[in-house]
Every structure is written in C-alpha cells, then in structure tokens.
C-alpha cells in the first residue's frame, strides 16, 4: 500500500468541480483508493463519500492506494491536486 499527504488549495475545497475531477480520475485506476481527512475515510471513487468528507480549502488529506497501479494512481491524483485542478492560483 502507498500513501501520500497533500493540501487542498482550491477555494471551494474538494467540492463542486474539483471533487468531480478527482473522482473521475480515481475511477480510472484498478486500485482501491481511500482519502483520509483527519481520521474520516472515504472511497475516492465515490462522489457522495468525497463530498460528505467535508474537505475545505487548506485541509490536509492523506491519500492511500492498494493494488497493481497504486503508484500510478497516487501520482496522477497528486498532480491533479498540485495543479490546483487547473484553476488559477
């Protein structure tokens, strides 16, 4: 299993468009991917669970993945978050 820690910087947090992009990307991988917000876990492929996790701007989250493509999955999700979901700033 691999794990990385990231900060969500978008104004709306991990909701709305960023959440949709995040889940869409997660779904492209075989691995099981979890997102952890201070102890609360959610399936990264479930839009409802991700929304309900309440990840606001500035929240630190831990992504973990388990499966054959776990490293690729985490790299791709990391890139998406670090590019600020393609939004300015």
């Amino acid at each position, binding site marked *: 299993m691999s794990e990385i820690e990231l900060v969500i910087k978008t104004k709306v947090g991990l909701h709305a*468009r960023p959440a949709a992009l995040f*889940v869409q990307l997660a779904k492209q991988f075989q691995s099981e991917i979890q997102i952890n917000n201070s102890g609360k876990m959610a399936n990264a492929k479930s839009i*409802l669970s991700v929304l309900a996790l309440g990840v606001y701007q500035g929240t630190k989250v831990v992504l973990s993945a388990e499966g054959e493509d776990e490293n690729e999955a985490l790299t791709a999700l990391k890139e998406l978050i670090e590019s600020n979901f393609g939004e300015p700033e």
Partner: protein
Amino acid sequence: MNEILGIGASRGIGIGPVFQYKITKIEFESCKVEDPTAEINRIRKALPVAQSQLESVYEHAKNDPSTQAEAEIFQAQLMMLDDPEFWQQVDQKINDEYINAESAISEVAKHYAEMLRAMDNEYFAARAADVFDISNRVLKILLGISDSPTEGLHQPSVIIAQDLTPSDTILIDKSMVIGFCTADGSATSHTAILARGLGLPAVAGAGSAILKIHDGENVILDGNNGLVIVEPDDATIESYQTRLNAAQVIKEKALSNAKEPAVTTDGVEVEIVANIGNVEGAEKAINFGAEGVGLLRTEFLYLERNNLPSEEEQYQAYKKIFDLFGNHPVVLRTLDIGGDKELPYLDMPKEMNPFLGLRALRLCLVEPKIFKTQLRAALRAGKGRNIKIMFPMVATLSEIRAGKAVLEECKNELIQEGKPFADDFEVGIMVEIPAAAVSADRLAREVDFFSIGTNDLSQYTMAADRTNPTVAGLTNAFQPAVLRLINQVIKAAHQHGKWVGMCGELAGEPLAAPLLIGMGLDEFSMSSPMIPVIKQIIRGLNASEMKVLAEEALDLDSPEEIQMLVKQRVPQADITV
C-alpha cells in the same frame, strides 16, 4: 366565477384550459423479500434506464443555449448515479435486512442527503436535492411511473405548478403553453423571466388555491393584473377575448413595422432596445426590432452552476452577444447577485433582508477578484464594439468612484499584458435606489448615463416587497412618488448633458410610454416581445403634447388617477398586450 390574486409576473392575457404540472408522488410499500438477489437484479436493470434518461436530459440541456449552464447539474447527477458506495450500501441493506429495493434505495438516499445537509450550506443542500433526484428517478423506473410530468399535455394550456425550476421548464413543449401560473415564486423568479422572454402571460405567488383547479377547466390568466379567474362567466370571457383580439391585431401590425425607428409625430426619436440575459435572447431581440441592448443581465453566466465562470468563458459569451449587435450599443450590467439571486458556491452569509444587503455592486466591491474577472472579460470582448458598462445598486457617489477605479485597474492590467480591449466606452449606473434618484444631479457629473430600474426603485421607494402579493398595489410604478422620482432623475441628467434610459418593467408598459416620452426619456429597454408595440405607440405620440400630459399626471395623487388620465388622452396606449 372565482378570482385568485397573485403577482403579475409577465404581461398579457391567456384564456384556456388548465394543465396541472404535477410531480407524480412516489408511493410504495416497504416489505420483506425472500430473494435478495432478485431485488438487486431489479436495480441492476433499472440503472441503465436511469442513465439513458439522465443522459438525454443532459444532452437536451446542453444543446439549448438558454439552459447550457444547467447541463452541469445533470452531469453531476450522472456521476452520482454511478457512485459505487451508494449502490454497495443499497445491496448490503437488501442482503442483510431482506427488504425490497425501493425501501433500501430510499433509506440510503435519506442517509446521504442527511449527511450532506448536515454540512449546512446551500451548496450541500443542493447536492442533497440531487441525491433525491437520482434516487427518485430510479424509484420511478422500478415502480413503472412515467418520467414526464407533462404527459397528457396535448392542447395549448395554462400551466399551473407549485413552482417551476429551470430543469422543469426545459422539458415543456412551449407550443403547448398559453401562460404560466405558480403557487410560489415572484415577479423575479425563473418562470417570470422565462415567460417574459417568450412573450407569454404569467402570474406568480398565487398560493396553493390554484393547485386545486382541475385539469381541463377553463381559466383566464391576466398577467397585467396578477389575476387568475376560475370558471369565468361568458360576459367576462367575452370582454377579455375582445381585448385579446384587439391586442392581437395591434401586435401583428406593430411586428410588421418592428424595424422602423420610434419617432414621434413632431420628430423626437428615442432608442428602443432590449433587456436580454443570454445569447439566444440577443438573436430574438434583433428579430423584434431592438436597436441594441439596454440591459445585458450577466447573471446567466453565474447561476445554476458550481463554480465561478472564468474570464475566458465570459469573454466568449460576451463576444458572441456583442458581435451579434455590431455597431449598435450594448449596455452590460455588471454582476447583480444577492437579494433573491444567490450563488451557492460563494458561500454568502444568510441575511435578514437580502434586498437591503450585500448585493450587486456592493458585493463586487468587496470581492474585487470576481468583479475584475468580469470587467476584464467585458472590456476585451468589447474591442471594436459599442459597449457601455453599467453598475447596479448604486446608492452613493463613492461607490461609483470605487467601481470606476476597479475599471481603471483592469484597463491598466490589460495594457500591460498587451491585450486588446475597448478603450472608449461609456460608464453608467442603474438608478434603482431612492438615494441615487434623490442625488441624481450630483451623480450625473460622475457618469455618462443613467438607466432607471423601475422594479427596484418602486419597491425601495414604497418600502413594499415586490415578491409579496399583499402589497403588490404599492409597488406599482405608476405611484406618484415613483413617477416624480423618475421625472427628477431625467431632468437632473439632462441638465448635465447626460442621457437617461429605463430598463425596468415600466419601460415596456404601453400606458407609461406617453408619460415617459413627455418626461424626455431617451432610451427604452424592455423584454423583446414588447418592442414592436411600444415603438408603434410612440410613433403616434406628439412629444410636446406628452410633455403637457406628463406635467398634469405628476400633479395627480394616485396611480389610478394617473392611469385614467393617460387612457382618456391617449386611447391607443390602452392596450392589453
């Protein structure tokens, strides 16, 4: 015969049968099942049907320019429909508790909706509604309930509903609509704006009594007076029908002359322009003879979505509209949000009195980033075009200066970035707050033009909520106090050599045209279907005579007296359209 009073939300008269737009109740029994796998299989079969239904609604929304923004909502719902956790929980519930698919789905939906609602902001409340939307869609398929609330709408009818959302109106065949009547809603609600754009009558806020009218029963929908007449007697129908027929003749004649200018018999020419709120509206305005746009509402870019529109997105939308009008003027009103129009993704705090709160220019000045994104997009798109920038909700001189300072900043940035933009454009304000009207002589020095917003000016002057049917009489723009303010604003602007337009409902009111010509209004901006008729009326007026008439009217003490005076002196303005 029985009269129900609501708010006149869109002018005109409709006579015809009622069609109740009903959301079919989803009813089912919760019960135990013996074979959980069979229940799960029922769901597996229903899901692709739900998906193709939603995809078709999404395509529909995406391809209709008036609903493109809403398409995003259906896209989000498609993602939820495909949520693995949701359906795993449903399966688990069926397997563990041996309950039927319907109960399992509705329980899991409730669980998620509650979780989202607990997060206590509008964005999550809207997502909770999405969860119910998708679970209801699947439930309907399982229960064999039709997806279409307009099934059975085969003759032109008066559509009655609790309230209509954009996603409802997308799917209504407009050729089957005589008019709209909603139990909730107001003159500014979605249905009202839609109806005005279509040139159909609408009454809003009529209360739950209208929901009890039977399908097929005849009603008269009087959008001018906010009235629904149930089971009208023959004499009433005849009197309305006569007015309707007369209006039809006038409308057709006016339409054939729509492209001709509005010049009075003594040679005074005024500008007749359109209120529009999207690209589709722009095309329509041109067909109705608009000489430009007096009010481009920009909210369409911001509403019914989950994030702010980017500069590029706005640039493309504005450019499309500006290009359609070529050298004709387009007055772009900067973001007018707040009040009854909220943007859930901005997370604005709840206000006790949103109409008196942080809205429109006030909001833009505390959120300069949002404001600048819009101004930059507008200036860039206005390159080589005849654009004018207008700030809404101005109360003080310092607000105008602050707004203009942000405009200057944007210009400087664009110069530095080497991006082309409209460098020569007028800047004006909406006069809709009494403070601005009273100080119009001062504010006129700071701007190039005024546009009087009569809807808000009436409600603020009369201290009467225009969304409240019980005080509708007070918000009437024919109230002497409102007309006096309008007159004062026009005079003050002219003393400083500035022009004055009007973009409130009063500008498209036939009976007001003689008075406004008499007061010297330079530009009339209205919903497109009214343009030909107002032009036609103005062509029959003598401006110097109207000046005398306006002076007499301003000396009267009630809206009724004023309207009576105009009807007597200018009978051709007394039409029902």
